[in-house]
């Protein structure tokens, strides 16, 4: 495994007199230059720019082209957002969604990872291949297929509910005819289906990472514990979890970052940016900025708030990775 701290140059290379006689080698900096320029211009500068934009009133695309001036309004965009009760709804949606999805993804992913580790060779290969399919599927098409599965006339789920005995369906849900039922109409149902889609996409990465971690743990430890009569539950919490704690830490942080900014799945499932009650921060920012009438400054302010939240989470991530690199 490559690490931050390992020195790719061998000691033999460092003793190379030719290199020692050249105190500052320009070559590495030249090689880095294109990369630094691109990252600077396309990632870091826009990151600064989004903050700048959030202090202006920008409601016209001509302002962006530079044809009209930018009126400075200080923190007005922020006070407008934070003072709007709708922002609380959005924030609540975002946080609850992220927490639920991280938890479900981690639980399902870990269980599948543990399962893959226990299955026979052929079965494990088969299941892992199927799991890879879910991972490889693009967010866009994966979501479209789930939308088809939940179609209100010929969708599989609608058919499944119609196939329930009428009495049972009536007793449980108060209706027996599900044709035409709007699966995406209530926010709670919408979020449940969105959760299903996102967890389906993201559990494979967790499963595969946990499996990789498990493979690196000496199996004697588990066998010994099991011989001593420890239950699977105890073995997990007393042996597996402590050993894989760093892996779990990074996986949780990465999942949190990803689930906080879900966009594509929501955009496709909701069919655009019209479904305001189910807004989360990323789609809220996008809709404010680009749905007519455009409010680029306001959208930028929301984007800044989203970034600030993620910055805190990223801080945890970087600290964790650096600690790993130091240890290994």
């Amino acid at each position, binding site marked *: *495994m*490559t*690490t*931050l701290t390992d020195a790719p*140059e061998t000691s033999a*290379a460092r003793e190379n007199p030719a290199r020692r006689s050249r105190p500052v080698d320009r070559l*590495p*900096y030249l090689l*880095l230059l*294109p*990369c*630094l320029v*691109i*990252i600077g211009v*396309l*990632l870091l500068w*826009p*990151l600064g720019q989004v903050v700048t934009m959030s202090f202006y009133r920008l409601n016209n695309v001509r302002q*962006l082209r530079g044809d009209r001036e930018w009126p400075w309004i200080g923190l007005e965009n922020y006070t407008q957002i934070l003072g709007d009760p709708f922002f609380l709804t959005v924030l609540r949606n975002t946080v609850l969604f992220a927490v639920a999805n991280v938890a479900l993804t981690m639980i399902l992913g870990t269980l599948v990872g543990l*399962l893959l580790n226990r299955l*026979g060779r052929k079965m494990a290969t088969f*299941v892992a291949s*199927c*799991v890879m*399919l*879910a991972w490889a599927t*693009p967010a*866009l098409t994966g979501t*479209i*297929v789930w939308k*088809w*599965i939940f*179609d209100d006339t*010929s969708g599989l789920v609608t*058919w499944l509910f119609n196939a329930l005995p009428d009495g049972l369906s009536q007793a449980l849900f108060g209706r027996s005819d599900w044709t035409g039922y709007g699966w995406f109409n209530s926010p709670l149902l919408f979020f449940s289906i969105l959760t299903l889609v996102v967890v*389906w996409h993201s559990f494979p*990465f967790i499963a*595969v*990472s946990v499996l*990789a971690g498990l*493979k*690196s743990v000496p199996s004697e430890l588990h066998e010994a514990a099991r011989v001593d009569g420890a239950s699977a539950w105890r073995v997990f919490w007393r042996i597996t979890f402590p050993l894989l704690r760093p892996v779990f830490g990074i996986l949780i942080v*990465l999942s949190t*970052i990803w689930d*906080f900014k879900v966009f594509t799945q929501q*955009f*496709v499932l909701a069919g*655009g940016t019209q479904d305001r009650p189910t807004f989360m921060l990323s789609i809220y920012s996008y809709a404010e*900025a*680009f749905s007519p009438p455009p409010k*680029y400054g306001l959208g930028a302010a929301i*984007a*800044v708030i*989203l*970034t600030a939240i*993620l910055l805190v989470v990223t801080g945890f991530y*970087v600290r964790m990775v650096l600690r*790993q*690199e130091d240890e*290994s």
Partner: protein
Amino acid sequence: MKKVALNGAGLLVALFAAFPVYWMIATSLKPSREIFSATPRPVPTHPTLEHYREILTGNLIPGVTFADFFLNSAVVAVSTVALSGLVALLAATAVARFRFRLRTSFLIMLLVVQMIPLEALVIPLFLMIQRLGLYNTLPSLILTYLGFSLPFAVWMLRGFVAAVPKELEEAAAIDGASRAQTFRRILFPLVAPGLVATSIFSFITAWNELIFALTFINDQGRYTLPVAMTFFFGRDDTAWGPVMAASTLFTLPVIIFFLLVQRRMVSGLVAGAVKG
């Protein structure tokens, strides 16, 4: 008994994970009346390619077929891959082959920029694209995706470069090869497989991207596949046959590429967390 339970759980997981992909392909092969029948059939009983024919030859808007969107997406993705592969290779060589003062800072920066929420950059990049006069052009997307794919590409490629034994290059240098020759004749061929793997990730990033393509392109003839699909199929009408055929054509290259390189993904993202 326990083994049966484990295998049963395994089959359930496999079903949950793979079913939507199967269902997409199966639906794309069913004639319309089978798709919209009251009882869904698990397998297409009368398999047909009519939906594929429809999307590939039919005009979605006058003069524009699905194949045009395919081409737009391919142009964007391939250009991104070429540019990002070249720049990443140079940077990875610098990081893996040289010790210099800012090396660690650069690596930490790479790690941090990968965490920038790209969704937050739509607005400022839209501004930049407007200012550069690139609005409504494919290069606007190539440029954007280049920035997005580069940090991970460098991060991944530096491992491949570091894995090439340095002695080979030293031997070439002793034999009188210049630095450029060593790079071209020794390092490049040996890193090529890693470059392919890295390129696939850049390709997938560019191929799948929706938000920026949605924002930067106005002219329907220049839509990339994801935008075309949300635009033509994502609204109210539900021609599920053509939608699933288009989805299948969009998804299959990604799945094939992905399966080729997925191992790198885990080691790249959980860098250093798992030893061995």
